[in-house]
């Protein structure tokens, strides 16, 4: 697909494969990546995963599998990721620092890689206070920056954090998150630089609604040469309703929803609000396709997986490239 290929994408990164994942290949071939997300069930409902997966298949390059998102107990992300792989999709295994110490993290990584997982997203995790076990003990033995560095050390040096050699090290494509919208704004690009220095091969951002701010952040990253060292995928979440938009604006920490978004949703017929939400998302994607320093988009259609085929279609990101 010609239109899908960005001319001047990150030459120095094209080199050698770090993990050989489909996602890595797509990025290194210069395609505009399109990734999705799937929350594991609150139980052992395998069919639930398969059903959600069916909407994503063929429409995204990789699927993030969340790890006890919002601190609610769910099927473990590696387990759900393996089921997803069985459905012919490539998972992005999310791991948070809240629930496990450095021993458990490394052990899970070995197991995940042994089962064929090749991408990982390293996160701090929402505080346990938000979830269904608010008085559990948060682990936070290491932080997300240190987790990135640990996964890189395991991959590139073949060593555990403690220094011992690994018998067949896991070779993961390493991701990290960024929230360009949280304060202090001027520090956010430096934090990105730190994550890249720690070893982030790719970055998926918090849901973007404030385009002005993301433009500024990407520009800063371009100016600092950071977009040549990592692949950045801004997060896009279509608004389903005005209620959702207002909730995101006022209740979700670190979320920046400008009033214009809410105004736009209010401006359409009540039955057309969700449609307008998708239209806004598609406009964002169009802009990201052209934005220098952006390597793709991460589509977080939260509990709206069945809409992903339509979104992908309208955002003109289909068919997904074969690499």
């Amino acid at each position, binding site marked *: 697909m010609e239109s899908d290929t960005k001319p001047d994408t990150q030459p120095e990164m094209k080199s050698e494969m770090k993990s050989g994942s489909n996602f890595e290949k797509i990025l290194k071939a210069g395609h505009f990546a399109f990734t999705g997300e799937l929350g594991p069930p609150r139980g052992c409902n395998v069919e639930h995963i398969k059903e959600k997966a069916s909407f994503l298949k063929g429409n995204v390059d990789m699927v993030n599998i969340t790890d006890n998102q919002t601190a609610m107990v769910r099927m473990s992300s590696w387990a759900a990721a393996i089921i997803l792989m069985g459905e012919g999709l490539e998972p992005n295994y999310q791991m948070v620092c809240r629930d496990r110490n450095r021993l458990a993290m490394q052990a899970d990584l070995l197991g995940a890689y042994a089962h064929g997982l090749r991408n990982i997203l390293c996160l*701090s995790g929402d505080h346990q206070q938000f979830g269904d076990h608010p008085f559990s003990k948060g682990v*936070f033995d290491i932080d997300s920056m240190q987790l990135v560095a640990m996964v890189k050390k395991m991959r590139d040096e073949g060593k555990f954090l403690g220094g011992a050699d690994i018998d067949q090290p896991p070779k993961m494509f390493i991701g990290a998150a960024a929230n360009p919208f949280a304060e202090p704004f001027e520090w956010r690009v430096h934090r990105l630089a730190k994550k890249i220095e720690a070893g982030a091969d790719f970055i998926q951002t918090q849901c973007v609604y404030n385009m002005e701010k993301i433009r500024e952040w990407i520009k800063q990253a371009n100016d600092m040469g950071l977009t040549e060292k990592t692949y950045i995928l801004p997060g896009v979440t279509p608004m389903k309703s005005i209620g959702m938009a207002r909730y995101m604006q006022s209740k979700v920490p670190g979320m920046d929803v400008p009033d214009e978004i809410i105004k736009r949703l209010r401006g359409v017929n009540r039955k057309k609000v969700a449609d307008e939400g998708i239209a806004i998302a598609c406009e964002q994607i169009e802009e990201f396709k052209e934005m220098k320093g952006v390597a793709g988009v991460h589509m977080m259609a939260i509990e709206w997986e069945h809409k992903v085929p339509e979104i992908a279609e309208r955002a003109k990101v289909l068919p997904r490239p074969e690499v």
Partner: protein
Amino acid sequence: MVKAERKPIEEIKDAINGYEKVLVTGCGGCVSVCLVGGQREVNELNAQLNIYLKNENIEKQLDGYTVERQCNDQFLEELEPKIDNYDCLLSMACGAGVQNLAKRFPKIPVFPVVNTVSIGIDKDIGMYEERCRACGHCVLGYTGGICPVTRCSKGLFNGPCGGTNNECCEVSQEIPCAWLDIFNRLKAQDRLDDIKKIYVPMEWHNQTPRTIIQEPYEKRYSV
């Protein structure tokens, strides 16, 4: 200093249920400073307990006695002659004091009156804020004198996370984001380079019981 808060009166009442003669033991150390476990609070607790017991028609002998500090054996000596007159002890001290008292008088049950909460500062009279978790590996030098282990809800060493919200931590609009404060202070001191470096995983030194010997005393305790 160590900060503590009193347990609910119901819990204290339950603890002494079945014991007739009770000595409420105050401590003149930290818990006295934070107005929860000194002589005055011993008297208040006894008065309160007496009202409860009277209402329920329960006979008990409640006495009070406050030592200088419960975390040092020497100060517990003076309790020696009294102990045999009691069936149990209530200790107003922090967790360390309670344990020391229980060890010094192992035959008699000791119950805590307070929950030990933190190492903190005096914000105002009767108001205390946590500042230190005694992790055993102080990083305040590079964080502008603001503790990320204690004041950041996730104990991050390379913050801030993406949850900073209206200058507050994602967990509450009442808790300032420690990393925003760290950033602001270091920026004002032109020291942001300190946190541009990646801070490596912490060596947790508080995972086994610790004993410290100050250097000038090392000889004294070496065998």
